[in-house]
């Protein structure tokens, strides 16, 4: 259900990007938003999400901002992650989405 072709542009702090499709019934709604932001906040890396590969980017640690995206079921969520624990953060984000936040 996803194209988790995470790519690393350069060796330093260049952002990691990847995308996954929202499979849970009502999209990125209240409960998934809370789960996603709670998970994101466990990482030091800056984590952003968007509905298009070129943004606009939204802070994945802010439930208020994530809810404003109003991402519906079937939407492709693009992630952009920058920071030391970026790879783990990106993996956690993709796992949550691909898993349908445990409610698909």
């Amino acid at each position, binding site marked *: 259900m996803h194209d988790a072709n995470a790519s690393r542009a350069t060796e330093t702090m260049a952002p990691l990007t990847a995308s996954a499709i929202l499979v849970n019934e*009502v*999209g990125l*709604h*209240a*409960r998934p938003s*809370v789960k996603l*932001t709670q998970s994101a906040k466990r990482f030091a890396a800056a984590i952003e999400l968007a509905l298009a590969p070129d943004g606009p980017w939204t802070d994945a640690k802010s439930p*208020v901002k994530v809810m404003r995206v*109003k991402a*519906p079921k079937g939407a492709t969520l693009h992630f952009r992650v920058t920071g030391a624990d970026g790879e783990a953060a990106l993996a956690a984000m993709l796992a949550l989405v691909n898993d349908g936040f445990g409610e698909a």
Partner: protein
Amino acid sequence: MAEIHLTGRAASPGLAIGPVTVLTNVVARRTAVGDPAQEAAALRAAIEAATDEIAGLIRTVQGEAAEILEFQVAMLGDDALAEGAYDAISVGVAADHAWRSALDAEIAGYRAADDEYFRGRAADLVDIRDRVLAHLGGADAVATIAAGSIVAGDDISPSVFLAADWTGGGAIALAAGSPSSHVAMLARARGAPMVVGLGPLDWNERPPALALVDGDTGTVIFDPAPETLHVFEQRIAAANVARAAAEAGRFDPALTADGRRIRVLINVAAPEDLAGLDPKICDGIGLVRTEFLFEASHGLPDEETQYAAYRRILEWAGQKPVTIRTLDAGGDKPILGLTVDGESNPFLGLRGIRLSLGQPDVFRVQLRALLRAAVHGSLKVMLPMVAIPAEFDRAAAMLDAEFAALTAQGVASARPPLGIMVEVPAAALRAEDFDAAFYSIGSNDLTQYTMAAARDIGAVADLNDTGNPAVLELIARTVESANKRGVEVSLCGDAAAETRLIKPLLATGLRTLSVAPVAVARLKAAIATVRE
């Protein structure tokens, strides 16, 4: 102690008996201290207090209700929510105003969402807003409500409602409130009877012990006499039997006892009203109020927002007809920046079509959104508070002009039939003079203008009777005009939800009635008893 009878508006059907829990006024008036630093600190403290309160509430509930509250905690814990409020405070706006404006803007964003689920979250934001406002006002923590009690107060917020256990009975009796509030929706969903608009609940410091709530007729009796109580208990038993029968028939077409088909439409005050509702229960939507789009305090809704809302409602209805009423602001529905403040008698002032024609730039936006939405279903557009044909003609000319402009620009649109709401006696008396494509009788206003008695003024509420022969005659005259001109006529208003009025209303020749979704099953059951 003498029993107290109060009449308000039915917001959630059903009958209930229980001990009274009085809610104190939650939102008190607040005086700003004026200093931005202190105002910001006050807001921060209120947000923290609200968060603590909800966190405490979470421990007492489970499942969906707990998830709703967890979401509220997450939102409150996010600085992004209050960002706009702190910005406003830094330039001198009082904390409560700043918070209210910021949240209203956020709420408007949710209400404009394409997705039903996200629109539904507006209620949570309203709850968050009010809970923090309550703390800013220095009010006490939200009262706890014992299971099975009749909650009486000015108004009640969703979180107070959710904090109570409604599985063991109980009901709500409010001085203010609205049948289209989220609490009313929650109450209907949980089967808790609710009556709103009872007027001031003044007990001279001796609150009643027991109350009977009739959510079908919108009446409440405090401290009933033993005989009243006994009769009420018998009604509850009978109602339980009748409700089971009515619910079974709500998907069937409405037929009178002698087999005449009556079309039953629904009234919609906001898109949320349609959530979880099966279109099969009705023959269409007889009235969509558009005031909900104009509630947010941040400017007027743009064309796209309106178009999206109208389109969603039309898509819900499929091929069934949908009548959308243009903005009916004024009277008891003030809208910031649009209606006139301080009119000596707002009900006889600049409201409805009068206001729209006086604000052509605002009106044109709505007409364009309606013309564009019309391609998505069977739309009819209705003008409120029309008194003379010239008002209709001017609005029709504006609709035609906007249609021509959209067509010239190649924008998909269709010119919907334009009709009038018959609620001013002048329009009822001379309905045939209007070039309207249909008439929709607004029984609430027609009654109050004919009887010169407002229903929210208790002392004259008994005069406010749609069953009065004068009102029925105006309705019959409108039906006659419709038949003469070969156009459709329907009635939307609370009268159609009053079982005792169904027979006299059908006797006027009416064949189409529009009621709140919650009243559909009851209306169909009432129609089935009528023999003409």
